[in-house]
């Protein structure tokens, strides 16, 4: 059964990757009229003459032609000083999508069902046989297996994931066919054709759900793990996926109501504030909700429960890490050096997030585009989005799962985690209690701590574990063969540190 599962998975992924190279593309003047905004039409029309009505057998050269046409136009506008006429729309994607005429464009639903049907069935065939193991911690072979110990399968997986993120963030037009395949579902859910973000949201959600089922089986002896996994699956499916799509369908500002600043770094960006203001009461509610969440919600909840209430029960990044990422949790570095880097990096990101947001709000309110006379808030915001939002949280954060463990972003980069970490460290009831002298220093806890905390260091001294980075996943407590560790909320005065 497991073998059949793997075959299904491989077929599915092969078809999916091959589908990138299928389809044909032909740009007609009707499509140009339909897709291109009026103000851009006269600029683009002449530049795209050379590919008009020409048949392309793949999307790469086709979309590249469009992209270079747009940049030629932008260069020209720039040299003429007409900065505000520049084109920021992603025409290489929208025109490519509209110009598809091959198999993928004709039968997107077929591709969708075939690829994801096989993917999901294959995954379950692979996962479900684990039920025949007796309940209990079964980490056998993890460091022998080439997927979970940074050997060849792990390296291939990591490479594929990294490539996927690079395509998604920086070359979405190259995955036009993948986005086309999502059109039928997207139209059904929100009434619009799919964007790359719809594709991403869909993949993210099925990853959390399918791998969540794996978690149910693996940790079926632990109610803590079961409840927590159900929780992240629920929040991903509803708050992150269904509700935002539904809001879009109802023509309301779409929002993931559990996401919050500073993880949601664009929360205070002008277009998002404007969008909410325009949407009236609901929009204002969303804005106020978003602010209350991080000003009041976070301190209160973190005081009572530690940052786990968010990081391993609610958050989307955490949700993916705890489901898709669980097979890789043992790969986080436990070195003291890594902890040092972590502290510098994550608090640096927090500071940058605060400065960037302050600048953006200042610009929004005052109309001044620079702070202190030299720092351009637009540039700051652009680079934050590029370096932190895309590269760090996406390419590195998830792409490196099979190479550096499943919480690279949460540990080293997430500004919200940094903020909650400070509260958890200094003012919280949460701690991991050590059970007297029972620790045998075996190291299971440290090995399986995704946050790279050397749990054993504390446990073998009989100290409680109070660390800013602990996301309260509870796995150290689950894997400990001597029942030494327990996640508890008690009066801060009783911490043994």
């Amino acid at each position, binding site marked *: 059964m497991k073998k059949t599962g793997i075959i299904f998975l491989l077929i599915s992924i092969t078809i999916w990757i091959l589908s990138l190279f299928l389809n044909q593309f032909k740009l007609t003047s009707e499509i140009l009229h339909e897709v291109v905004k009026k103000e851009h039409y006269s600029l683009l029309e002449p530049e795209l003459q050379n590919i008009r009505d020409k048949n392309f057998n793949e999307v790469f050269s086709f979309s590249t032609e469009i992209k270079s046409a747009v940049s030629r136009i932008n260069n020209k506008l720039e040299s003429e000083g007409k900065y505000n006429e520049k084109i920021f729309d992603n025409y290489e994607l929208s025109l490519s999508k509209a110009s598809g005429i091959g198999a993928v464009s004709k039968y997107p639903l077929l591709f969708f069902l075939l690829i994801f049907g096989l993917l999901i069935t294959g995954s379950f065939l692979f996962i479900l046989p684990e039920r025949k193991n*007796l*309940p*209990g*911690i079964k*980490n*056998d*072979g*993890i*460091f*022998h*297996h080439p997927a979970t110990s940074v050997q060849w399968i792990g390296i291939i997986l990591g490479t594929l994931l990294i490539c996927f993120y690079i395509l998604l963030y920086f070359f979405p037009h190259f995955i036009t066919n993948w986005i086309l395949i999502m059109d039928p579902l997207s139209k059904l859910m929100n009434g619009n054709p799919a964007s790359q973000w719809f594709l991403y949201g869909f993949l993210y959600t099925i990853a959390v759900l399918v791998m969540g089922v794996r978690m149910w089986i693996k940790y079926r*002896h*632990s*109610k*803590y793990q*079961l*409840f927590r996994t159900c929780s992240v699956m629920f929040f991903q499916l509803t708050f992150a996926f269904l509700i935002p799509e539904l809001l879009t369908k109802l023509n309301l500002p779409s929002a993931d109501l559990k996401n919050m600043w500073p993880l949601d770094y664009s929360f205070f960006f002008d277009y998002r504030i404007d969008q909410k203001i325009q949407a009236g009461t609901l929009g204002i509610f969303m804005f106020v909700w978003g602010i209350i969440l991080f000003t009041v919600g976070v301190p209160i909840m973190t005081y009572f429960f530690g940052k786990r209430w968010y990081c391993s029960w609610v958050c989307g990044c955490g949700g993916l890490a705890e489901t898709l990422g669980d097979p890789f949790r043992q790969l986080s570095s*436990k*070195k*003291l050096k890594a902890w040092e880097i972590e502290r510098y990096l994550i608090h640096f990101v927090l500071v940058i997030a605060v400065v960037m947001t302050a600048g953006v709000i200042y610009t929004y309110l005052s109309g001044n585009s620079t702070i202190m006379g030299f720092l351009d808030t637009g540039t700051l915001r652009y680079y934050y989005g590029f370096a932190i939002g895309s590269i760090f949280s996406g390419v590195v954060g998830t792409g490196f799962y099979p190479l550096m463990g499943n919480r690279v972003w949460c540990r080293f980069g997430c500004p919200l985690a940094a903020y909650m970490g400070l509260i958890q460290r200094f003012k919280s009831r949460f701690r991991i*209690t050590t*059970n*007297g*002298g*029972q620790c*045998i*220093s*075996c*190291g*299971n806890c*440290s*090995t399986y701590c995704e946050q790279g905390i050397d749990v*054993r*260091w504390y446990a*073998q001294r009989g100290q409680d574990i109070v660390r800013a980075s602990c996301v309260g996943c*509870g796995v150290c*407590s*689950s*894997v400990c*063969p*001597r*029942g030494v560790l*327990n*996640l*508890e909320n008690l009066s801060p005065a009783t911490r043994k540190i």
Partner: protein
Amino acid sequence: MHIAIIGNGISGVTAARYLRKKTNDRITLISSESDHFFSRTALMYIYMGHMKYEHTKPYEDWFWEKNKLGLIRNEVISIDFENKKLKFKNSESLSYDKLILATGSKPNKFGWKGQNLNGVQGLYSYQDLEKLEEITPKIKTGVIVGGGLIGIELAEMLKSRGKNVIFLVRENSFWDNILPEAESKMINNHIKKHHIDLRLNTEFEEIIDDGNGNVKEIKIKNGEILPCEFVGLTVGVSPNIEFLKNTKLDTDIGILVDKYFQTNITDVFAIGDCVQHREPPAGRRNLEQIWYTGKIMGQTIAEILTGNKTSYNPGNFFNSAKFLDIEYQTYGQVPANPPENINSIFWKHQIEDKLVRINFEITSLKVTGVNTFGIRMRHDVWDKWLSEELTINQVLNSLTRANFDPEFFKKHETEIVEELRSQIS
């Protein structure tokens, strides 16, 4: 002053660390087994692929130099107690002013026929693990001899690598010299659930070779022959003091020490598994090969050598283990067969492998010990109860306070207390 410590296990390393906190003396840790301290208790997890060797090292490699703890990887073959000199295998030597012996244990072998064949071994050292790893590809069936804690670990290890495992236990039931009958039976069943071929009341006679010095089969006392490629000998351990026998050092089974770890030779001390206490603390055996006692001995010797003459005081007995999927903890005294003045009452879950047993004195009702399987309990709470000599009723009234299971786990205390109360009356 130079303090030399033979053995870099938990006892020697704890002694070195605590000494370093208090003195600037030169400290040297000597081991023939590994460059750095690792956790012997985690050997099984390396084999099963839960961890790699480096994960079992509680301190990173820079730790030793930073704390000015000298490390020597070499075997001491003899000690010149007169001139305070250690002789190494490579004929180098090292002088000391004070010597701490923390040489640990070695697996027992009782002179059976075939005990030195290829594929026959115990599990104690890292080298044992390497040997096992090396022959693993050849193993189809492994036979484990001896039903103790290391035996069941070895059985689990082989099972995790897809081997057939036959587990020979001489007694009527698994570990029944330590565990009361109900517990022992429960573990028997659990072992079988894991498809381990548990043979109780079974002793082996000899191990038979294939003519090339490898194990071919093992013969048990009823004459049955079990073909196998591996035999694990796990019939207990004894102090690793071969090189100290027939010297001036006073030894019996272990190195004889008083409650300050002083041997019969001035400036020579012994701690950890290799020790035999001349006057063991109340409620303790004279040989106790446990992780935490090694740790406590290490801490205590550091106190003693830095001028604070404290005697060895390990406190109330406690211990823990894991039998495949069943976690076990014990606090106080719960002997396999309760003495006459002790009442022993227990609750067992109808289906799951969960069990709680509490012993108390019949006349005074003072609680003397607890066994808990599948339910975690708090060490500090039980320790306090035992020290304060709470009665069984007081304990049952507040049993929930001892629960240490993770959040949301099903709590059985109501059921347990009800059952135990009914057994008392």
